[in-house]
Each structure stands twice: as structure tokens, then as C-alpha cells.
């Protein structure tokens, strides 16, 4: 991760020339995080952590409350910074390429309250430069259990429904890497089953998922990588 000035888009960049992102992927995409550390309020949160995640794999990140799971997820997504360590995607430090292939869903879902479900999904697709038809949006809303809610404002939905709406994006955007921070929270049993199913399918179809979820045995069993964040203690270096 370039830091400071380097990662700052000071100039308006032209889009990478690839006509379709899928065409570059001759080899399986891989994400490498080597000895990464994050800080909150100037204090390191966890011991250096490494992860190699290829397409078709699932990684679970665990750790007690306050161990920095969300901070780590944000840093991986590109919202935060690693204070130490290396971040490589397809053996390059290319931030743009990573953003093109990943989607992050955090605690803050990113739905706009006074936009309808349909408008929310449409915006997400357009801002990510994905063409989408009304039929596709309707079918995704149907799958997410929000059939008939097309024209409801996102603020009128229940907490679980908001989560479903946000998860619906993943199906529309078709990115390879999903970064999901506690996606099961607020979902009912049916919702959890649905999410489990789409994660499983995604991984099977060559996608990759990093997830933080406690209490989700089924997901943990599915995972190829299981990372427990160890609290960083000063002076043990």
C-alpha cells in the first residue's frame, strides 16, 4: 500500500486500458498480505499477520472484540492503512487493480436512506461502472428476499432488510474478492442460510471471500484459512 502522497490521486487518472477486467485474469488472482499491522490511536492492534488468499478460497478472521478485525478489513479493502507489512495483489502493489476486483461491505452498509432499494442498487452498479438492467435488479431483490420492495426507501426497511439490500450488491457487481465484515449480524435464520449459500457458491465458482463472523460454525468449516488476531503487546518485539 503506497502511503500518503503516493496513494493520493492528485491527478485525474485515465481508466486502465483493459476492455474487460476478466480478460486479464489468465492466472488465478491472488491476494497476499505479509506481516501486516494496523494501528488505532497510534497503538498497534495485533501482531504482524499474514494471509495468502487465492481465488476459490475462503478466509475467516477471528479474534476477541477490539482486536482490530474491522480495522484490518478496512485496511485490506483500501479504506485504511497498514502501518507495516506488504500488500500484494497478483504480485503487484496495484491499488487500482485490487479495487477493480474487490468489494467491501462493512458495518456501515452504505445504503442511502432516502433512495429506494432499486435506486440504491442502480447507483452502486453505476459508480462501479457495471451496466445493469431493471430485470437484473428485480431478480437480485427477489433473491435477497426483498421482492416487491423495489420502490421502498432504504430507511423504511428493518435492520435485517437493510443488510439484505447491501448484500444484494455482491450479486450484481460480480467482483472476485468479497470482504465481508460481520455480514451475518441482524440476519434472521433464512437470511443466514441464504448468505451461507451465496458465499459457498461464490467460492465454488472461483471467487474469494474474507469474512469476519463469530458464531457461524458452518462458515468456519468452509474456510481454507482461519486467522486469529493476537493482541499486540508493546515491548515483546
Amino acid at each position: 500500500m503506497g502511503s500518503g502522497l503516493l496513494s493520493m490521486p492528485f491527478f485525474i487518472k485515465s481508466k486502465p486500458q483493459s476492455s474487460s477486467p476478466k480478460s486479464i485474469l489468465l492466472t488465478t488472482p491472488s491476494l497476499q498480505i505479509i506481516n501486516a499491522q494496523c494501528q488505532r490511536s497510534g497503538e498497534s492492534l495485533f501482531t504482524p499477520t499474514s494471509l495468502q488468499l487465492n481465488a476459490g478460497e475462503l478466509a475467516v478472521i477471528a479474534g476477541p472484540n477490539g482486536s482490530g478485525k474491522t480495522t484490518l478489513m478496512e485496511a485490506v479493502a483500501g479504506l485504511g492503512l497498514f502501518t507495516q507489512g506488504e500488500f500484494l495483489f497478483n504480485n503487484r502493489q496495484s491499488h487500482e487493480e485490487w479495487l477493480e476486483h474487490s468489494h467491501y461491505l462493512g458495518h456501515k452498509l452504505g445504503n442511502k436512506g432516502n433512495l429506494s432499494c432499486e435506486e440504491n442498487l442502480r447507483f452502486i452498479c453505476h459508480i462501479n461502472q457495471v451496466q445493469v438492467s431493471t430485470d437484473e435488479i428485480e431478480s437480485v431483490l427477489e433473491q435477497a428476499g426483498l421482492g416487491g420492495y423495489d420502490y421502498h426507501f432504504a430507511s423504511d426497511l428493518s435492520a435485517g432488510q437493510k443488510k439484505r439490500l447491501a448484500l444484494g450488491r455482491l450479486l450484481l457487481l460480480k467482483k472476485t474478492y468479497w470482504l465481508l465484515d460481520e455480514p451475518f449480524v441482524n440476519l434472521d435464520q433464512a437470511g443466514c442460510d441464504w448468505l451461507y449459500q451465496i458465499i459457498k457458491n461464490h467460492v465454488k465458482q472461483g471467487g474469494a471471500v474474507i469474512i469476519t463472523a463469530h458464531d457461524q460454525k458452518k462458515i468456519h468449516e468452509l474456510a481454507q484459512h482461519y486467522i486469529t488476531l493476537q493482541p499486540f503487546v508493546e515491548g515483546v518485539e
Partner: protein
Amino acid sequence: MQFWALFKRDVLVAWRRKANVYQPLVFQLLVVTMFPLGLGAGAQTLSKIAPAVVWILALLSTLITLENIFKDDFEDGSLGVYVLSGMSLPLAILSKTTAHWCTTGIPVILFAPVIAMLLHLPEHAYGILMLSLAIATPIFSLLGTVGSALIMNIKNGGMLLSVLIMPLLAPVLIFGAGAVLETALSNSASTHLLLLSGSLVLSLTLAPLAAAAAIRINLE
């Protein structure tokens, strides 16, 4: 396409929250009522202060809309959505600035003659008033994004926002209100307007970069 997607979304969000659009205008109307009440209703007194008051009201009413430009997006997480969309951040900011200008700047420009009439501004100055505001309201929005990006993480940042951008807006006020004043006194306002345009060009190039830097730091 990304630019328009974000622009469309912001205009829609602002339009649905009608208060965003009419709040500045109601504010102007409220304050302008207080001037005759406090100063006396003499047309001569009022027309003397009119150029400055119309301008300051336009500025203050924009100021109250700035705080939430990025704060709302930061709080509901949609800031992350466009930061991570691969879109160049200054471009995203420019898109949001344009949307903010369309939903607050344009109404303020169109409403200015009403305020000017209430304060007995000489009629031949109306054209320059609208023109100066047309050049200056984009500056308000541009500098506003910088302030808004700086305070997006703070509760009740409105006061701090005012302190941060007041020094930036001081020259704009000098040039803009000066232009209207000169016209009211039947002098040429072209120097003022040129300097105002210069400020617009400068803030158009620098403000998105500064706001992008502020957002990056805030997200770290």
C-alpha cells in the same frame, strides 16, 4: 459515467430532503426581515447596505448547508462506496460539488433579486448581483467541500467549519460585495468580477485536491 451517477444520486437525495433546498432561502428571508426592524425602514438606509447584506446573506445561507456534504456519506458508509469504486477521488468531489451547487447555489442566485428588492437595491445593480453570485456560489460549494471534508468525523463541527472557511471566503466576499457596491454607485465592476473569476479558477483547481487529501487522512 461515474461522475454523473454520483451527481444524480446527490441531487436526488437533496431533492427528496426538501429542507436542504428551501432552508437557505427561508434563512435569508428571516434575516432580511430583521434588518428593517433593527435599522429602520428608510429606503435610503437600506439601499446603502443592500449590496453587502444581499451578499452576506447568500454566503451565510450557503454556510449552513455545508456541514453535511460528506458527513452524511461518512456516517451511512456510502463514502466508502465511492472511495472504493476506483473513481478518482478529486473527480468524485467535483461531482458532489456540482450537485451541491445545483441544489443550493442556483436557488440562492435566483432568490437574490427578491432579497435585493426587499432592501431597495438600485435596480441597475441586479444584473451584476446575479452575475457576481453566479461566479461566487461555485466557490462557496468548492471551498465548502474542503471544510466539510475536514470536519466529517466530528460531532457538531459546524462552528469549526465556519472558522476554517471564513478566512478562505473573506477575499471572495470582498470581491463580490465590492462588485455590487461599485455598480450601485454607478462605477465599473469589471476589476472585481475578474478577480472573482480568478478566485473561481483557483478554487476549482485546488479545492478538490485539498478535500481529497482531507478525506484520505480522515479514512486512515
